């Protein structure tokens, strides 16, 4: 557990890709089998373990600490697993933490109801860093910013000779933890594992954000336009050897989307956008989030949050690799294939007319319904290239709307932002000169702005209600949002989509902030 905990701790603070690769490679090189294989599985989402619920973790800590002290500590830290890891009674001198393989083997045979007791026994043998790793493992939330793809790139550099990452992708889905055969092959001690026709992930082609001067220079005649869907990019790979739904980062998310996998009775590799769609209407992104990060999907959720895919590219038709073909030719193949196959739960993302710059800009700005965040512009002659090649594909998000609002309340963030006041409720002026709350934002600010806001809130608090601080009504925040929608659930009568802090307007007095009427005037047409 110690090397794994040390790895997670470093990864949690490491942003640079090169440094993450160095940390992963050192871990894989220095950690013996089978621990390193289980570490790899934990990082790439390859473990199916009995887990513990937050309420069970709370019960464990409640039996060991003063409830008032726990409440104060949790309020400060903001993350349950971290609070528990830090507060847990210290291990006896000389206690040795369990090994990762020992933990996983035990969890595989521990009945669900016995997991909390087993967890407590392990926590008693760990230091704070190991406790946090264990708790994150068992609550299923490592979140250290390592994609499956990145782990595989690290593995590719492991052996003396080096193996291409594509070669690892090809065999990956035929392997299981703790990946002994894989490590043996990578280190030149064994044969290449046989993929046996299992579906494998192909790195997707990514787009650059389109800036105003890029747009002015673009030769529009050479481009095709599609909606930019507000969902999750997926790759569907199916054939005689099996079916898999991959995320952009090569995570196999099939288990969470059995409804999609059931519809993949074909032999092809397709590129598309995963969405929740009810009666032909794309649901807000938050609905899709309910389906993500799950190890299984309960039937009730499958019924209430049905998934669908908008297809926009074809990488393989059967065994035939189409990636070298130009976009137009791939699109023709995709359309012809779709007409034949007619897969359930899937649609073709339409090509949009490209009738000049002004018309395209109007199309982008008019797209304010759920599920669309702008346009994609793809060169008609672009082959399907891995990574983010320059100048071929562009993503062109619609400009956000903004209002100047007054900060009303603040609350501690959770998880990554724990311990800092990072959840902000803001309001606008009503006719009668009172402020009415119109939304909450907890993103968009820089680290420096967060530090400023946290300090400002602590020094301008006028009242506290549990974890919430009411502040002086003097700070103006420019809030950006994607759309305003009429809402009967909000006191203001309006709900904002994806509000975030775009600027802190210390230059603007609060009485010059926007009025509610201004916001009501921005409500999109016909979306009541």
């Amino acid at each position, binding site marked *: 557990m110690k090397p794994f905990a040390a790895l997670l701790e*470093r990864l*949690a*603070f*490491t*942003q640079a890709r090169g*440094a993450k690769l*160095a*940390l992963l490679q*050192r871990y894989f090189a220095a950690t013996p089998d089978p621990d390193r294989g289980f570490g790899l599985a934990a990082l790439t989402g390859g473990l199916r373990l009995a887990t513990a619920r937050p309420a069970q973790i709370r019960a464990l800590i409640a039996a060991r*600490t*003063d409830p*008032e*002290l*726990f409440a*104060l*500590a949790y309020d*400060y*830290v*903001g*993350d349950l697993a*971290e*609070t528990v890891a*830090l*507060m847990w009674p*210290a291990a006896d001198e000389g206690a040795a933490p369990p090994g990762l393989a020992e933990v996983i083997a035990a969890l595989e045979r521990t009945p669900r109801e016995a997991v909390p007791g087993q967890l407590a026994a392990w926590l008693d043998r760990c*230091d*704070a860093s190991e406790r946090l790793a264990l708790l994150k493992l068992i609550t299923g939330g490592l979140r250290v910013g390592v994609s499956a793809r990145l782990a595989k790139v690290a593995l590719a550099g492991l052996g003396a000779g080096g193996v291409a990452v594509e070669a690892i992708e090809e065999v990956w889905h035929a392997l299981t933890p703790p990946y002994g055969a894989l490590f043996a092959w990578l280190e030149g001690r064994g044969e290449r594992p046989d993929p046996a026709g299992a579906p494998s992930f192909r790195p997707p082609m990514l787009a650059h954000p389109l800036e105003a001067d890029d747009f002015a220079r673009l030769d529009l005649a050479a481009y095709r336009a599609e909606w930019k869907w507000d969902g999750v990019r997926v790759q569907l790979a199916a054939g005689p050897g099996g079916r898999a739904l991959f995320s952009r980062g090569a995570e196999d998310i099939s288990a969470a989307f059995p409804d999609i996998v059931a519809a993949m009775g074909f032999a092809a590799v397709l590129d598309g956008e995963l969405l929740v769609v009810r009666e032909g209407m794309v649901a807000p992104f938050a609905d899709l989030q309910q389906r993500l990060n799950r190890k299984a999907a309960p039937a009730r959720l499958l019924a209430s949050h049905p998934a669908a895919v908008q297809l926009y590219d074809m990488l393989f038709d059967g065994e035939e690799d189409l990636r070298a073909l130009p976009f137009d030719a791939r699109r023709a193949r995709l359309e012809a294939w779709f007409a034949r196959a007619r897969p359930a739960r899937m649609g073709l993302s339409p090509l949009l007319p490209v009738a000049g710059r002004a018309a395209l800009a109007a199309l982008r700005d008019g797209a304010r319904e759920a599920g669309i965040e702008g346009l994609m512009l793809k060169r008609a002659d672009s082959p399907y290239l891995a990574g983010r090649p320059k100048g071929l594909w562009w993503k062109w998000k619609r400009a956000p709307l903004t209002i100047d609002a007054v900060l009303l309340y603040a609350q501690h*963030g959770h*998880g*990554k*932002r*724990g*311990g*800092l006041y990072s959840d902000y409720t803001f309001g606008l002026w009503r006719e009668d000169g009172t402020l009415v709350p119109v939304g909450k934002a907890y993103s968009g600010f820089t*680290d*420096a702005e*967060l*530090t400023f806001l*946290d*300090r400002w809130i602590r020094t301008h608090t006028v009242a506290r209600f549990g974890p919430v601080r009411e502040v002086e009504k003097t700070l103006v925040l420019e809030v950006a949002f994607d759309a305003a929608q009429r809402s009967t659930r909000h006191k203001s009568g309006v709900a904002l989509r994806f509000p975030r802090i775009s600027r802190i307007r210390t230059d603007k007095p609060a009485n010059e902030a926007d009025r509610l009427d201004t916001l009501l005037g921005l409500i999109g047409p016909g979306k009541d």
Partner: protein
Amino acid sequence: MSAPAAETWLQVRPEGLYCVPGDFFIDPLRAVPRAVITHAHADHARPGHGAVLASAETLALMRARLGAGAAGARQQPVGLGEALTLGGVRLWLAPAGHVLGSAQVAMEYRGQRVVVSGDYKRAADPTCAGFEPVRCDVFVTEATFALPVFRHPRAGDEIVKLLASLALFPERSHLIGCYALGKSQRVIALLRQAGWQRPIYLHGTLMPLCRLYEALGVPLGELRPVIGATKAELAGAVVLAPPSALADRWSGRLADPVTALASGWMQVRARARARGVELPLVISDHADWDALNATIDETGAAEVWVTHGAEEALVHAATRRGVRARALRLIGYGEEAGEDGGEAP
């Protein structure tokens, strides 16, 4: 005969904690005629006092930081444990283990003993004398890290993490944010203890205090200014800078630096992330939760006053153990430290 309540002779005033019969303030927040100073950090040792009584090291550090003219018109050094009497109050200093020269202020008046801790820690520190608990009736304690999530790991283990990172990224400079007074010298001394013999490079603002520590008898090994060092010399080197200098590119010569910060706040991940730190080092010059509570118990005090930090949790925990505890709500310590983004050093 029962002693008068301590509140009658030790009072909270806008200037800070005031000893009435002795007519002096302890760590006053603004200029006063007579001050007793626990240690030389900016939020405790403010400029412009009339008479200043403190340890000789604290006075030397104050002169270096504030300038000889602002470090007290009359300076009176007192040796640790050396008692004197001021207006019927018997007063002496006891080591606090926070930074070089740091002291607790012990006072006896009409049979009652009050000890003001200043900032303190219980962990060993090669750069200053260790904390000595003083039995007392009223203990006035800091509470910077008074939440049960703050249980500082051994500083030596954090240095092992730093050395492991230097080994993993031998081409990258390791830029460590450290408060200029105390933390910097302690990190250097810990590195030397761990066997790091190479020159350590310093941001310009750290050099004078390191030189003063050496003059006061704390050897720190070879120190060099970053200015003038070549890119090749800085590759894989340890570089120390004040925390405020971490964000700005004050030296383009640093080779793809691993940014570290040595601070007790690094215990909480969100705090470390908010500072953009790649290698958080939980090295604190304050008592952690367990040490604060153990120290209260060791003093045997029936009553505890909490000066600054997370008073609520410490008052709660002390009360649960039958100690009368209350928060003094002194404003102006820790929060104003500035250099460390709100951290009391």
